[in-house]
């Protein structure tokens, strides 16, 4: 197979684009896709302060690399979740990436800041670890970005993530999440920071290929809590369809953005007010994060220290 651009031997085939690229042209292709997505959805400009949520996995590290390469002085935010060796390796990998590039990395340790880890929280709340983990991430990415004056939070969500989330939302007809699912979510309240997903047109295989070709060391192992996750089931189902019918994932998600999402915009938006405890936007008296924290604190010692900044 030959590169579409230079006819040299191809390294990556993109069946959904009916094309293949050699290593240098593939890296250009990914960078162009990201730049196009940023422009198309007016995600951010050169003047904006961008905070990248970095787990240490392929997508977030690739995103951070692409932004730095494109000249955005993006900072990274890594949450230390306390999920055993997996979290230790994730933090080490993220630090090494930031140190190599002289990029600013903010680390936030759940245990020292909040008094709990994701596994402890799961035990206390008697809920699956992923539900507390997701709530922590959504709240803390926004709060830390807001407190530190960032204009936008960028996450490494890729096409597989978005298509799988869409499939889950459609299977259960979750209209509220469907209305909110978007490559760019504007800051609709003074307490909210804009959220963007610049990699939403690129698949997981494409992002892993980017990291391998670019020599980015990422955490390859799966979060131990993700075993049996619904998102993996949906991704597997979509990839089975994709293998028989290339382009299906992209058509599914892009079709949603182009055709269904405009119809959902008329649905009444939820009114937000400030949480009585932390001041963050919420629909109720106190936000879900503060309610979770109150329950967890009843069972845990008081937290102490502050987050570390490197770079």
């Amino acid at each position, binding site marked *: 197979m030959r590169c579409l651009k230079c006819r040299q031997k191809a390294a990556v085939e993109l069946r959904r684009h009916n094309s293949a690229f050699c290593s240098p042209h593939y890296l250009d292709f990914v960078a162009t896709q990201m730049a196009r997505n940023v422009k198309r959805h007016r995600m951010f400009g050169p003047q904006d302060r961008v905070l990248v949520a970095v*787990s240490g996995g392929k997508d977030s590290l690739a995103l951070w690399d692409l932004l730095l390469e494109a000249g955005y002085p993006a900072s990274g935010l890594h949450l230390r979740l306390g999920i055993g060796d997996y979290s230790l390796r994730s933090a080490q990998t993220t630090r090494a990436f930031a140190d190599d590039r002289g990029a600013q990395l903010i680390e936030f340790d759940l245990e020292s800041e909040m008094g709990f880890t994701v596994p402890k929280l799961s035990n206390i709340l008697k809920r699956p670890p992923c539900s507390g983990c997701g709530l922590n991430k959504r709240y803390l990415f926004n709060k830390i970005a807001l407190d530190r004056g960032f204009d936008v939070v960028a996450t490494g969500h890729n096409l597989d993530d978005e298509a799988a989330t869409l499939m889950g939302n459609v299977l259960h007809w979750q209209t509220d999440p469907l209305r909110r699912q978007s490559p760019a979510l504007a800051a609709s309240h003074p307490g909210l920071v804009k959220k963007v997903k610049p990699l939403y047109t690129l698949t*997981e295989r494409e992002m*892993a*290929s980017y990291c391998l070709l670019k020599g980015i060391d990422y955490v*390859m192992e799966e979060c131990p809590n993700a075993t049996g996750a619904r998102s993996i089931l949906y991704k597997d189902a979509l990839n089975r369809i994709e293998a028989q019918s290339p382009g299906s994932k992209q058509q599914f998600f892009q079709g949603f953005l182009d055709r269904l999402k405009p119809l959902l915009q008329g649905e009444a938006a939820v009114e937000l007010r400030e949480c009585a405890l932390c001041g963050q936007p919420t629909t109720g008296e106190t936000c879900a994060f503060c309610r979770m924290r109150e329950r967890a604190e009843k069972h845990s010692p008081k937290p102490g220290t502050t987050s570390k900044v490197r770079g």
Partner: protein
Amino acid sequence: MNVLIRNPIRREVQLQGKRRVKRLLEELDLNPESHIVIRDGALLTADEFLHDEDRVEIISAISGG
């Protein structure tokens, strides 16, 4: 050839006979949309031939969360 499947569960497989990458993935029941095949540090496309003396790595690109 020696095939090392890196993740999610690390395992090694020994196979005999020349075959294409596409065929290898089919035999191992691995979806080409979610796996990357590497030989000597180079990423391989589905049409590449693999030989008995090759050492091949397969990486799954899928993650949860």
